């Protein structure tokens, strides 16, 4: 695919960087645009593999918002296990249209969860709450 010339550090917005993992391109687009309008720097990934490539190439992001059902060999739950192992302080929010409450636990710890279909404002609110807990300001 070739390379693009760039400095490797991806800019972090003042209000925090959110990694969104969603394979539905229209939902991803609309969610990410809404989060950008709230002041977040947003990285878009279509699969867990893409997200892992990003996280392996840079510092952890502030929050991950991840669909449970993803194409490829790694789903959202497996990604969360990987993320908690490699970036223990990086919060992950999961989303799904049909994930039983009993399965919203990864590595013995509950995972913040937003049911689909969701209002993007709910996502922004959840992110702001998590960032507030970790001492960051959150979006506008």
């Amino acid at each position, binding site marked *: *695919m070739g390379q693009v010339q760039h400095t490797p550090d991806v800019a*972090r917005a*003042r209000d925090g960087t959110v990694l969104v993992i969603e394979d539905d391109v229209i939902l991803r687009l609309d969610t990410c645009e809404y989060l950008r309008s709230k002041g977040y*720097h947003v990285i878009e990934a279509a699969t867990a593999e893409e997200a892992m490539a990003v996280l392996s190439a840079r510092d952890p992001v502030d929050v991950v918002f991840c669909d449970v059902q993803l194409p490829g060999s790694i789903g959202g739950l497996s990604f969360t296990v990987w993320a908690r192992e490699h970036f223990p302080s990086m919060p992950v929010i999961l989303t799904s249209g049909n994930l039983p409450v009993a399965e919203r636990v990864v590595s013995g710890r509950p995972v913040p969860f937003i049911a689909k279909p969701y209002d993007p404002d709910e996502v922004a609110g959840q992110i702001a709450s998590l960032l507030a807990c970790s001492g960051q300001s959150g979006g506008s």
Partner: protein
Amino acid sequence: MSNRSKRVPLQVNAETILVIEPDILVRMVVADYLRECGYKVIEATGAEEAMTILNAGRKVDAVFSEVKLHGAMDGFRLAQWIRANHPRMEVILTTGVTATADKAGELCDEGPLEKPYHPRQVVRRLRMLFERRRKAGR
């Protein structure tokens, strides 16, 4: 502290650019750079996602696409589909392969943008295309 403030956009652009690039580390950098230059950016991993966006009626002024894409449709075929279905849309192809770059020249007015490129080259190309469009009254 963010280094974004160092990249002051020269102008605020209202155009929307659809960036199609399967390598997320490339796509992320190009998309961020274009946003910092004032463009609205839609990201797609391949031709199928791009067509979903365009078929949904999302406003797109220009497409910047890698030639080598995963799936059944490569950048050439996507460019042909766009020419047929969205004739007013500007298309810029990019590739790191010289042989395909020659072929891409037939689908881009200014020829393909060869990799490796700096994102500012993309911005220059976009500004040139939009300026030409404005002068032509399109």
